[in-house]
């Protein structure tokens, strides 16, 4: 799994780009990154899962933890670009009701307004 991250030009939002298999082996790296990102206040993070083709429950737990940490810091972890198999997992577990999920990065960024 690849992990890339950058901040938007105005520095308000951290973007996390993941690709490949997101599972119990790769989740700790993501969890560590999210924990650091959630130290900002407000902690606004978008995880772009557009290139993720598999997620297991440990990976989802890492995102849930990140989402909680960001919300504690008056921010949020929002998701975007979910491929069909990944979207299906979010729908089956109803984690789509816990996260704000957007079709693409632009709409996820725009969700925080200008």
């Amino acid at each position, binding site marked *: 799994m690849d992990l890339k991250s950058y901040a938007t030009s105005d520095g308000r939002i951290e973007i996390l780009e993941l690709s490949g298999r997101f599972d119990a082996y790769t989740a700790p790296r993501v969890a560590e990154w999210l924990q650091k990102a959630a130290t900002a206040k407000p902690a606004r993070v978008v995880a772009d899962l557009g290139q993720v083709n598999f997620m297991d*429950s*440990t990976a*989802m737990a*890492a995102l*849930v933890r990140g989402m909680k940490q960001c919300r504690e810091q008056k921010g949020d972890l929002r998701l975007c670009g979910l491929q069909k198999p990944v979207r299906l997992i979010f729908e089956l*577990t*109803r*984690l789509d009701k*816990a996260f704000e999920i957007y079709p693409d990065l632009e709409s996820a960024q725009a969700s925080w307004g200008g």
Partner: protein
Amino acid sequence: MLRVISRRNRALFLQMADMAATHGWQGYFWAGADGRAILPTELFGELAPTPAQILGKELLPEGWYIAPVHAADQRIAGFVGAYAPNHDTALIHLAPQAMLLGQILAREEELDSMTAELMGAYDLLVAMYKVSQATGSNLNRNDILKLLIEQAKELSSSPDSLVVIDENGTLREVAPRTEGQPHEPWLQPLFQTIQELKRPILWNQPADAKVLLEAPQQGVDRCLAVPVAVKGDVVACLALLNKPVPYTAGDQKLLTALADEAAAIILRDRLQGQLIAQERMRRELEIAAEIQAGLLPSDLPMLPGLEMAACSRPAMEVGGDFYDVVQGPEGPVAIVLGDVTGKGVPAALFATVAHNILHHAIPQSPNPRAVLEELNADLYEELTNASMFITLLVVYCDPGSGQLVMVNAGHSPVIFYEAATGRARLLEADGPPVGVLPNILSENHTEKAKTGDILTVLSDGFPEMTGPGGEMFGIDPLMRLLEANANQSAVEIRDCMLAAVRSFAQGMPQPDDLTICVLKVD
């Protein structure tokens, strides 16, 4: 040195003295390096030379001739002398005799040194034998190390010795110089130095120690310390102290050999410790697995009009899945199936706690959603801290009416088969799992089950069972399997679903826990 030869070779002296007589010489002697006569033991007569004369400090009396005997290192080891008035030949004959004696002396020295080396090797062998005997005995590590340094102390004639060992960053004297005395302040710098250098250090005078350690040593004039290295790391140090004469290369060789033995002892001790810890862990997991298995209902209730079958197969010794069948407050039976994220001990701990909470909450509440709320309130913080959540289905079932009231927090798959249509459908969750949000979003949902209808609740280990090519079993095949086996008993349906995913895996390791509950209306 010539004295040594003269003791061992008196016959040679006598032969040489006889030869001198045949030359017509009137006196013959050997003297030591100090010029004093050795053989004969005294030189008599007014004309006999004094030690000073033999050493060449004074003029020799007339008629006496002297030749120095040189040792292998060219030192003067003694003198050969003769009184031969009117015999100039003495000067010519004495020089080869002195050379011959020099050669003999060199061989004798060589022999002495070889004998000493042999004795040293023998002593070392005896010491190693004693240590290896101790290693095979029931003695513990520290006692063996004490015995080992005692051997080194005896062999090197050192009055003091010590062994220090690094135990997780703390220096411990397992064989102190003086029993019961506090830690000597110079030991820390000694050990640090030896850890850095990774080779023996030696001082034969206190001034050298000050330079080496930059720390004061109390009553340690001489020291030979060698590192004990295990897998390249210096973990201990053996030291011999205060030998009356300087430590030699031989002492270092001896202590280094014993340090290798000490390294083997420490390594063996560590491996034994690891084995014991592993065995303890294995036993604890066995106990945990027994406890967890004991929490699952051993016998499912036999209810008229309802057939039930369930089982759980963890991927590891213990797992994060659990199920339960509990009598509800108003008669109906409640069925619970939960799946904690992850596997192994952390998941098992939460599974056990959640199982217990539900087991006691269900008989108190007629409302499955209220039970779920209670569980979420109890575990939300702990689950958050552990980065975990629980997918959970609670079904209250009234066998008389066939009414199923269920609440589903993110659990999948839950498959409902309707005999009337012959089709299976997925009952999807309407809220996220327990522990994700501070409140529960799921609502109670009711199904009316008729004769032949089947509710099958599985953990995600079933659809996510992986084949040899990495492909997953999926939910659809489970639904088709249920449809195809709907006329079977609950037990047969449970078993055929387990068999199907196992056959799909073709011997690949089970990636996740497998838990299934089947409820069939007769």
